[in-house]
């Protein structure tokens, strides 16, 4: 099952790559650098999926104390942090030639950066606690606190950036909705979500094997 998922992910990524460079047009104002969007946006959105799964798995763990739920949360956290980190990096690389800056403190960037640091903390907490049962419990609590915090982060940052202060920079690559841009984006989004699923499935399997080996 995991192996099939892997092949599907590889296939989808290949298709996505072809579409990003073969089908998607050269953007009018930005030029070809806009093609970075086809990895940047899917990475960020897939990381959101990861964090939602983490939150739900944490809740399930707290209620049912099911080790499988904990493993799912753990794996999802790892892949989520990796994806959001890559998302931030690719966004930064995209931003430099288009905005002229590696970073700005606009609402979306700030929110995503906070997300990254929060869930990095989640992984650090996991790494610091040796007792697996305690790690599962504490991380589940942190996972829920983090998830509940996300709307608060969203609103506070949004109000900070928009009230009494107009948005100073345009976001690059807001798509016009044309099919030749939409389809590559969707295919790549699907590809990265499948890749997320593959990585998580494989990681969970590994975690279970490690737990059995330690038993």
């Amino acid at each position, binding site marked *: 099952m995991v192996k099939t998922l892997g092949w599907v992910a590889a296939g989808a990524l290949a298709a996505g790559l072809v579409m990003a460079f073969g089908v998607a047009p050269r953007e009018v104002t930005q030029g070809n650098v806009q093609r970075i969007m086809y990895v940047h946006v899917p990475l960020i959105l897939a990381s959101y999926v990861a964090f939602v799964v983490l939150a739900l798995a944490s809740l399930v763990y*707290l209620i049912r104390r099911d080790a499988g739920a904990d493993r799912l949360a753990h794996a999802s956290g790892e892949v989520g942090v990796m994806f959001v980190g890559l998302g931030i990096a690719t966004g930064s690389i995209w931003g430099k030639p288009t905005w002229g800056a590696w970073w700005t403190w606009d609402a979306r960037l700030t929110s995503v950066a*906070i997300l990254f*640091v*929060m869930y990095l*903390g989640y992984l*650090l*907490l996991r790494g*610091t*606690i040796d*007792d697996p*049962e*305690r790690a599962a*419990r*504490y991380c*589940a*609590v*942190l996972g*829920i*606190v*983090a998830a*509940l*915090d996300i709307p*608060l*982060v969203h*609103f*506070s*940052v949004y*109000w*900070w950036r928009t*009230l009494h202060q107009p948005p100073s920079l345009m976001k690059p690559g807001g798509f016009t909705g044309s099919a030749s841009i939409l389809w590559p984006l969707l295919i790549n989004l699907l590809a990265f979500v499948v890749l997320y699923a593959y990585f998580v499935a494989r990681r969970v399997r590994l975690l279970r094997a490690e737990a059995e080996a330690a038993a």
Partner: protein
Amino acid sequence: MSYARRALTVAWKDLAVERRSKETLNALVFFSLLLLFVFQFTLGGDRERLAAVLPGVLWLGFVLSALLALGRTFLVEREHDCWEGLLLAPGDKSAIYLGKLAGNLALMLVVEGLVLGLFVVFFDIDLGRALPGLLVVVLLGTLGLAAVGTLFAAMTANVRARELLFPVLLLPVQVPVLLATVKATEALLLGEPLGAVAHWVKLLLAADVVYVVVSVLTFDVVLEG
């Protein structure tokens, strides 16, 4: 022992310990004085820049003091081998959380009052009409910090690299509180009425409710071992 009684006992115990040793209080006051001096050295001459940066620096002082205070909140239990006592406490352990929260809140508010007073005196700030609104914002913001801080302090109490992990976990989660308090303080100090920052106050209220409720519900889980 009733729930409320247990909570109050914990709070009273913490405050009594603090009143006797004054360890944390001293550290916090000294640290705040240090902040004051550094602030003066860098910005003292320029009143305009000072006024612009004041809300941020004030809350920086509050937050760093909070980190110090909250980081030590379970220190007494850890150092004197009372941690097992906490774990074995009968009944709903969230009473312990509320007691700790109350104690931390009291301590933090005392220090913040002191810091604010020092800032007003040394930088000749006119609080005037801003004071009631400011008190509301400070109270709500401090509650937010203390609510999550107490929970995270319990979680990190017995882990490796506790002193590093605690702020790393707390600060990102507290960004909404920090944003709301700094922006609200800024507006209030500029003379705006409390109504003008109603959205920030509402955010703080929502945050406080969420944090306290989640912490009360999950504290038992943290103190399972």
